[in-house]
């Protein structure tokens, strides 16, 4: 499902226009991004936590050339699903 389909689904479900849905989605995304950039953890109880984690610097060795490279530290967004979502998935999905 891509962005367009998502917006269409949202507008269908909540009864707002697609434009509104798109605008709200964009605002939501920007709000979430802002909060994450500030280093805050965002928790949606029924969904999961968005968290910024710091990956420490590390030394990597290229297995073929044996070139050692120092990888600098970086910040990454991490998502961990909530237990509620996990249960839901367990009930509703089957692995083939």
């Amino acid at each position, binding site marked *: *499902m*891509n*962005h367009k389909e*998502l917006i269409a*689904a*949202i507008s269908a*479900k*909540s009864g*707002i226009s697609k434009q509104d*849905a798109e*605008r*709200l*989605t*964009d*605002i*939501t*995304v*920007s*709000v*979430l*991004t802002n*909060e*994450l*950039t*500030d*280093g*805050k*953890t*965002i*928790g*949606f*109880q029924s*969904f*999961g*936590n*968005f968290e*910024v984690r*710091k990956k420490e610097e590390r*030394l990597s060795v290229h297995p073929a050339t044996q*070139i*050692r*490279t*120092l*990888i*600098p*530290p*970086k*910040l*990454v*967004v*991490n*998502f961990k*699903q909530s237990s509620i*979502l*996990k249960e*839901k*998935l*367990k009930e509703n*999905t089957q*692995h083939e």
Partner: protein
Amino acid sequence: MSKEKISSQEIIDLLASRAGISKKAAEDFLKSMFGIIEDTLIAGEQVKVKGFGTFKLQWNEPRKSVNVQTGEEFIIDGYNKVTFAPEAALKELVNEPFAHLEPVELEGADTAEPSNAENQTVENAGFDPLKIFTDQADEIKDILSEINSMWVKPGKAENKEAAKPERPTLMPEYFTDDMLDEDEDEEPAVLPDEEDEDAANEEYIGNLVDEDEEPAQAIAEPLPVDNFETGVVDIPVLPLQTDDKSEVEPTIVEETTDEFNPDEVTKTESVPEEVVDESKIGESIPEDETTKEDPFTARVKKKRRKVRVWLLVILILLVLAGGFTINYYMSSATRCWCEYSLLSDSNRQKLQNVTSTIDGWYESVKGWFTPKAKSEKVEVAPPVVKSIFTDSIKAQPAAVDSAQTKSVSKPQPNSSADSLQILFDQPREYKEFLGSEKIGGGGTLTVIAERYYGHRDFWVYIYEANRAKIKNPDKIAAGTLVRIPKVDKRIVDKNNPRCIKKARELHELYLRDN
């Protein structure tokens, strides 16, 4: 980075205020949004939110685990997990604090530690020789002042000379390099060597100076002892003197004392033999016949003794100057340069003073000696004297020859380098040709140059020979027939860095022209 956690409620508030809608509407919107994402995920599809990221379902296989308390094995059931892959834009925004950092390729950790060690040793080596050097400079000053005092009273010189510690005479390579270096850098070809040596030797110079001092002294000590013995026996030293004179002059003029030490050793070795012979005569002559010559010979002997003293002084001065310059050179202490240059200048001046006076001495002694030899020849023991005389005569030309060969052989690199320069400066004319090549098929000028002359940089000579056909060496029409000129091998010597340098200069020149 604060680990502040904000709940969905705060997001709803923010969304409501930003979008200008009620909190209820915002909450409804968010719920429906995440509800749809969930549903889509449950349906087995991934959800992409523009500007944010992609949600996916990932199946985690069931796996075995152990209960930490009881040690029982149990199986964790397989489950689906929602994964979130942020978009590049989000990644960059979040990683902004560390965005300036980039991966760095490292040298091996093995080399990192030795390089530190190297630096330390270099620092030490740079420090130690300096200290040693200044110490030695002080010593040399003392010795020079002693020598100056001896200048006034040469009679006492012999005793002092014997007691004096010798300066270390080090390896001839350093000696010559150093001297050439002083010689206004006439031979640039020597410089790289010197620099290499500098860099390579820097580390062990400290040790070298330390260690060499003792063995070198051990080597150098026999020298004055030999001379001293000759002084005790009291004999004419004309051959020795001529040798030394011829030796001293080239050393001062050219400052190339390559074979200085070996020569010195062999000469001092050869002297005692003559000494024994001549002393025999010296003893036999007065006893047998010539009583009237006694005062005469006494004066001559006196003179000769003085000459010997001065010879000793010169030798020691030379050795000191050599040792001093070598030590200086090896320590490569640039900050001592001024002090050194002053010192060495004064040394040289003294040396020249000494040699000029010695010249005077020599001339006068020669004047004394020749009539005496003639009279001896007439009066007594003709065969022995003759042999000595001829020996000394033979020795003289030999010494002169060696001096000449030395003076001829040393400047040779200079002259060859100069002739190379002349070759470079001469306008090159190309009359003979090795062959011709077609551009395009056979390759570029550089490739052809490498094939014919052994080095890419010599393409400029091909270009010079074909200037009529080639206007721009960078743009040669395919199929152009260029003639490969026969160039003087001394110019296209790929092993001579000067040739390559010259070719590169021409290269720059021609590329600038076009």
